[in-house]
């Protein structure tokens, strides 16, 4: 059964679904962001597993290391980019959370989004 052989990928996919579930269901916006980060981490894990090689070694050519046994360097290089992107998005989202909490005094997404929804036109007019 390929599924059990590819258990790394399966774990990554399950983690992805777990993160998406957190993003959809949780009402606290910090927890939503945690879910987002779980999703991101799962994808990073998936990529790194793609580069895995049975009995592989690090792709650093020191002391006559055999290139045929080295693991795939591309996913690692890509994921460095992915991590940076994830950090950037998280930083921006958190700074927005700071501002939202200051202005609304709540972290509950339902209350945040519902508040003043009908008056949006009026309140927009002032500024």
């Amino acid at each position, binding site marked *: 059964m390929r599924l059990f052989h590819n258990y790394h990928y399966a774990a990554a996919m399950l983690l992805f679904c777990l993160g998406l579930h957190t993003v959809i269901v949780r009402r606290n916006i910090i927890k939503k962001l945690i879910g987002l980060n779980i*999703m991101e981490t799962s*994808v990073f894990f998936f990529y790194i597993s793609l580069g895995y090689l049975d009995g592989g070694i690090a792709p650093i050519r020191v002391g006559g290391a055999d290139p045929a046994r080295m693991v795939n360097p591309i996913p690692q290089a890509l994921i460095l*980019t992915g991590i940076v992107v994830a950090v950037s998005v998280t930083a921006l989202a958190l700074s927005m*959370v700071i*501002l*939202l909490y200051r202005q*609304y005094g709540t972290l509950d997404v339902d209350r945040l*989004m519902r508040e003043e929804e009908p008056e*949006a*036109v009026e309140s927009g007019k002032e500024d």
Partner: protein
Amino acid sequence: MGAWRHFPIFMITVPLLGAVLLPFLGYAKERWVPYVALLPLGASTLLGILLIGRIPSGGYLSYHMGGWEPPFGIEIRLDYVGLFLMLVVCGITFLALIYSRRYIDKEVSPGRRTAYYVLYLLMSGAMLGFVATGDIFNLFVFMEILALSSYALVAITGNRNAVRAAFKYILMGAPSSIIVLLAIGLLYSVTGTLNMADLARRIAESGYTEVLIVSYILLVVGFGVKAALFPLHMWLPDAHSIAPSPISALLSGLLVEVCTFALVRITFSVFTLGATDLVMGTADAVGVAAAAAVLYGGIMAILQKDLKMMIAYSTVSHIGYIFLGLTAFTAEGLTGAMYHMLDHGLAKACLFLCAGNFIYMKGYRRIEDLKGAWSQMPWTCFAFALASISVIGIPPTAGFISKWYLILGNVEGGKWLYAVVLLAGSILAAVYCFRILYYMFFQAGKEGAWEESWHDAPPAMLAPVWVLSLATLFFGVFSSLLIPSLLRAAAYLL
């Protein structure tokens, strides 16, 4: 082998470098920032214009980053369709930046103005890179720069509604980026390459059909959120209506199109050879969603009370148009979609900037407040009328040409129902546009709402609006300039 070989990369990097250097100017002479920010975009536009005629007809210009040949290094692949879209991006960002200075001075607090221009340049550079790149992971990287800068630009005024809209945008946008990343990983796992042309070859001979299918669906969903395709559009009305007007123009007129274009490239130049049945099947589903978007967007736009909200829902409707052109899978449909990207970009940018003029001069956002606007702001009202006509699709404008080709493409593809939906969408557009025009020109405003004498927006804000609205007219009258080459390019893509 002239210096023009390097133009594509400079078109992309010059705005990015400008964004990095701008803060230095911000410390020294903050007054100059809005003017100097125009330089990199002007340079990009110039380089893009110089590139016209250099690209072999029916072919593409390939630039190998760092001199590494494609599957190993990153490739910039620019064909005429890409260059066309890049020029549209350059032009509209340039005009909206001219517009920005006065508007931003009023709406954004002084401490954030430099950040506004930095993010603006980053966003323009990212859009250019996004269109030009020939590497699927590079596409993701530029998409992220684009997404980050647009999240922040929506929230830049810092008032509570803006931050809330931006946060909603993040909550939809960030998971969609991750979904795209996952899809790219799946593609990579079965092909071992990231270059788009190489991917197309490898997909054709790859036996892992199921993985390809799911990765295509994930890509459609991921880019669908960014492009605000109907069931995934929830972030759009809030973000587009609350952002400062030049940013609304960019988001609505360009960002959405650029993301759609990415999907076009993925569909037509990556998944062409392999898993065709499935791409067709997904396209059918997308077609249904797009048809729903046309009707839903139109109806919601009629129901709105807020002017910018109405224009935003009209965007939802027009994204449906573009997607219906793509899913027809005929050269005419594709040409119509491409041309609609152009004219929707111009017209929507124009409408949002006009709405910005009303907000700037009088602070009016509601449609009812526009009654009698003609008496004070005739220039803005005329530009608004011209752009509305293009949005509806009445003959002398570009909107007519694109809708004509869209309907033609769908009829030729045997999709009569969609052609009817497109016509119905135009009728809805006529309803919501003519209502405003009626208010503007034929109704008297409330006592004291408008001054009796002409007192229009400053020239720096009127000029971009007029250039945009005249451009819709120009591309409507002289459509033969672009249509033949677009048809050829579309036939080449199919």
